[in-house]
């Protein structure tokens, strides 16, 4: 019993929005769609909601084909990134509207509206118009409207993007708790890896309309299937370096630590490292060393993003971003040495498929995902 998508394609005006999507979403689990903008998250949700007809493929709910079922009959609800409420109705009327349309009895409507408003902490504002509320309250109103009817599928399309950081944190936790008590199929989309990790549900990685990987978020973080999947979990993205069979050491790049690696000896590959795994100090462990120019140091509260660049073979100038803990200033310094522990390297084949991921390195030098 679940929502299943079979070979779903969505093509509008010669543009592919979704390609060959095969997925299954189960009730009770918190399903997360993680992908950058234009990855197809919204398109996928629109197809599931019935707002868009797929060009190919089937949507099955609990074993029944609902591909052609009109949106009004699907019993879904959806919360958008923008705060979408009916501006001319009060909060109460907004929340009650799906119930009224389903011909629920007035006293039952009253009970459920009040209960849902209580849950989302907007009880004091029921008689106001949505535009008289703050952004967070407006979105709570939209969420209440989505939760008040017992929808079989609840879609949250980046619902917290337009809210400030604090509010996001608290709403995210609430949202997870609220939806856990239901047996609806909940699907939540986001562009942010930390959100997917914090929600910790069944995560599907989307990239350019295709599914890259599906599974628990933490597992994906450790074992990305390819470079795109790995990049989705890192902001800034992985720092990469393409290496050939013959590792070329230059004056400012010392790759000798990689020399004994069998995997790299097989042919061209891309090695990459997480922004927070680059050290500025020499390490005991085997490491590669790069002399780089400092371009910019961005300092936020307790961390520093250091933008550096260096020349590498025919690839020209490579730009890396390092994520350092604490505040570092480099006011007088123009150059510095980077040390990358070999054990922390990702290795990808030229097509981007992951051959080795860092956490495995210690246990299994030949490790293949």
């Amino acid at each position: 019993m679940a929502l299943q998508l079979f070979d779903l394609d969505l093509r509008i005006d010669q543009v592919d929005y979704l390609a060959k999507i095969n997925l299954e979403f189960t009730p009770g689990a918190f399903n997360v769609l993680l992908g950058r903008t234009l990855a197809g998250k919204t398109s996928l949700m629109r197809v599931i909601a019935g707002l868009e007809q797929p060009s190919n493929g089937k949507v099955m709910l609990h074993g029944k084909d609902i591909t052609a079922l009109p949106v009004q009959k699907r019993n879904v609800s959806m919360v958008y990134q923008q705060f979408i409420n009916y501006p001319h109705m009060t909060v109460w009327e907004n929340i009650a509207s799906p119930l009224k349309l389903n011909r629920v009895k007035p006293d039952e409507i009253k009970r459920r509206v009040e209960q849902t408003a209580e849950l989302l902490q907007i009880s004091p504002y029921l008689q106001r118009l949505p535009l008289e509320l703050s952004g967070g309250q407006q979105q709570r109103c939209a969420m209440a409207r989505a939760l008040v009817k017992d929808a079989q599928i609840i879609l949250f399309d980046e619902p917290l993007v337009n809210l400030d950081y604090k509010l996001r944190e608290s709403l995210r936790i609430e949202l997870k708790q609220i939806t856990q008590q239901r047996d609806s199929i909940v699907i939540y989309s986001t562009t942010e890896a930390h959100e997917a990790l914090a929600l910790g549900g069944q995560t599907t990685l989307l990239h350019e309309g295709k599914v890259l990987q599906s599974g628990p978020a933490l597992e994906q973080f450790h074992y990305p299937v390819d470079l795109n999947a790995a990049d989705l979990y890192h902001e800034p993205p992985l720092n990469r370096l393409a290496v050939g069979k013959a590792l070329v050491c230059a004056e400012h790049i010392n790759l000798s630590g990689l020399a004994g690696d069998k995997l790299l000896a097989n042919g061209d590959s891309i090695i990459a490292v997480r922004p927070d795994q680059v050290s500025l100090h020499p390490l005991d462990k085997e490491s590669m060393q790069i002399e780089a120019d400092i371009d910019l140091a961005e300092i936020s509260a307790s961390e520093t993003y250091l933008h550096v660049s260096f020349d590498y073979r025919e690839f020209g100038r490579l730009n890396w971003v390092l994520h350092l803990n604490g505040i570092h200033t480099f006011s007088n310094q123009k150059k510095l040495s980077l040390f990358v522990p070999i054990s922390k390297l990702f290795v990808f084949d030229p097509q981007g498929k992951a051959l080795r991921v860092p956490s495995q390195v210690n246990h299994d030098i030949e490790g293949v995902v």
Partner: protein
Amino acid sequence: MMIGANAFSVRKLLGLLLYLLFVLLPIYWLVMMSFKTNEEILGQLTLWPAQFTFDNYVTIFTDPSWYMGYVNSMIYVVMNTLITLVVALPAAYAFSRYKFVGDKHLFFWLLSNRMAPPAVFLLPFFQLYSSVGLFDTHLAVALAHCLFSIPLAVWILEGFMSGVPKEIDETAYIDGYSFGHFFVKVFVPMIRSGIGVTAFFSFMFSWVELLLARTLTSVDAKPISAIMTRTVGAAGIDWGLLAAAGVLTIIPGILVIWFVRNHVAKGFALGRV
């Protein structure tokens, strides 16, 4: 400094007052004339009626050939406004929500209808309506005016509708509204300012339009504006009576503006008027 600012604002006030006087003088003159007798109007220059009289108004309200003019005008103006809204609302919705072949061209073509002077359409309308038996009916004038009011209405409403995010439509469908239900219960109330503005423009256009209204009617649906142009009697022009008719013609416009003033102000700010 303070004195300078005051002097400036006094000058500004004076300028504005002069302008206001200049603008309102004709209306003042019209109102005063309507309370004067013809002898006084033609005799001497008076700022205030020497012999105050309601006779002109009494004539209009008691003579069917006068007051039926107002009734006729009212009927076709209201018909025109209703037809315009009923046609333009779905049309504007289509332009704002759907993409179809030639939508932009069609939209511009609609607007270009307004670029032709009404006189251009005089002959075809007269010919057509005479042959189908619509001549001298309220519907004839209302339909003829629609040619001008509908394009403008579509254009104004499209601006308002495009200001409503498409996600609202979708949310309504997800909530379970059918299209018709959504349109009437959710969408129309959301753009009521736009509808107010549109109704106002259709009303005013139809109310002041003379050429088509006069040509397409003869007796039964003759509008007030046409009656006013034909009041040269054997005794010359009845100035006082004409002035009274003029005053009464201004009043519906003032009333309409009064009722939709908030919507129009909002409409001017939001839409594309």
